């Protein structure tokens, strides 16, 4: 499953570019099938937008796995920064363990579909590149204090929610639809727990609205 760095980078970049959607259109790689792509057809140059190009489930899962790997990497970096109190450190470790369970399960599903999961991030600069493309100001940047780190992790959860919800609109296999729904629900719970760490007892912040939308 190991890939050469350039291939890994290319795959991950492509995958995450899709996950980012139109908001990050600038980083969308050419030649990657996008179900929601805008195409120009015929001599008339008629532009149509719609689900004209169907993606396979493997193509849909790839950016989801990439985003989960980004999330796990960011969690690990934050934990390694050592800015958390023991209580918050434990809570964050629990979340990271759950993100890793998502990666394991989703990667297995991707392989089962004939796909190849990207290798995990190993360099901050790689993660920063993707984070900045997703409008995370400063990327991982200086992880100075507890507050900033929790905010960063909450934003990662929103990104993960968005990646799964986007996948759910495209996946065809019932088992994968159920799996992605189970995971997006867990990501939403992570957001709630992170908010509780920052604003204990504030239910309006812990559960911001009736529909989890995510970002990206």
């Amino acid at each position, binding site marked *: 499953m190991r890939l050469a760095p350039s291939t890994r980078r290319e795959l991950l970049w492509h995958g995450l570019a899709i996950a980012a959607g139109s908001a990050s259109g600038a980083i969308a790689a050419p030649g990657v099938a996008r179900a929601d792509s805008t195409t120009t057809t015929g001599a008339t140059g008629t532009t149509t937008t719609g689900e004209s190009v169907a993606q396979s489930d493997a193509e849909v899962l790839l950016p989801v796995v990439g985003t989960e790997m980004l999330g796990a990497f960011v969690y690990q970096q934050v934990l390694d920064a050592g800015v958390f109190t023991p209580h918050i450190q434990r809570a964050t470790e*629990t*979340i990271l*363990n*759950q*993100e890793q*369970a*998502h990666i394991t*399960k989703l990667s297995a599903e991707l392989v089962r579909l004939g796909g190849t999961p990207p290798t995990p991030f190993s360099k901050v600069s790689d993660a920063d590149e993707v984070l900045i493309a997703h409008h995370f100001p400063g990327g991982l940047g200086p992880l100075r204090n507890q507050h900033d780190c929790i905010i960063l992790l909450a934003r990662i959860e929103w990104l993960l*929610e968005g990646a*799964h*919800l986007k996948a*759910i*609109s*495209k996946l065809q296999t*019932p*088992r994968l*639809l*159920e*799996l*992605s*729904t*189970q*995971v*997006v*629900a*867990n*990501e*939403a*719970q*992570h*957001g*709630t*727990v992170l908010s*509780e760490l920052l604003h204990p*007892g504030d*239910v*309006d912040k*812990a*559960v911001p*609205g*009736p*529909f*989890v*939308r995510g970002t990206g």
Partner: protein
Amino acid sequence: MSSEDLASASRRGLLRATGAAAVAGAAGLIAACGSTSHSSSQTTVAAPGNADADALNHALDLKHYMIAAYTAATPYLGGRAHAAGKKFLAEELSHASALISLIQKAGGTPNPPQASYQLGHPRSRKAILRLLDSAEDKMIATFIDTVPAVTLPSARTTLASIVANDAQHVSVLRLSLHEEPIPAPFVTGRE
């Protein structure tokens, strides 16, 4: 709630009464949110062969139950749990409204709420929170089964978005119960 352990008879009576009133009130609110009004004489069965509407109506039935449960239970909760109950009730109403719209879009007729619901006999604040937690879990499990059963991609996304919000409710309820808010990496409603 002045006591953690209320007399079971009075509590049962209160919950039943409040539950019935809640359903009636919730029904009015839901109807107001939807694009059409519903009368009791309307059919509650979706058009034959309309699998999406059938599946969504099953989900709506559980939302009606959840609305009744929050409406009946919230007055007996205090402090943070009370605030959460009020908020979650409003969110359940939003979910029901969204489901009604989806059912109508699928060509079906949304099921109305029942006249009353059996909400059990919780005798303490903790028992009420457990009732809500259990009902949320049951609903989550059903909604996860429903996601692949509907064909419209936007409906699937809406259902998943609702499941995620309900999972947040569960986390807050578990925090109120001093239990682990994220017990498992995959939310199934059966953990």
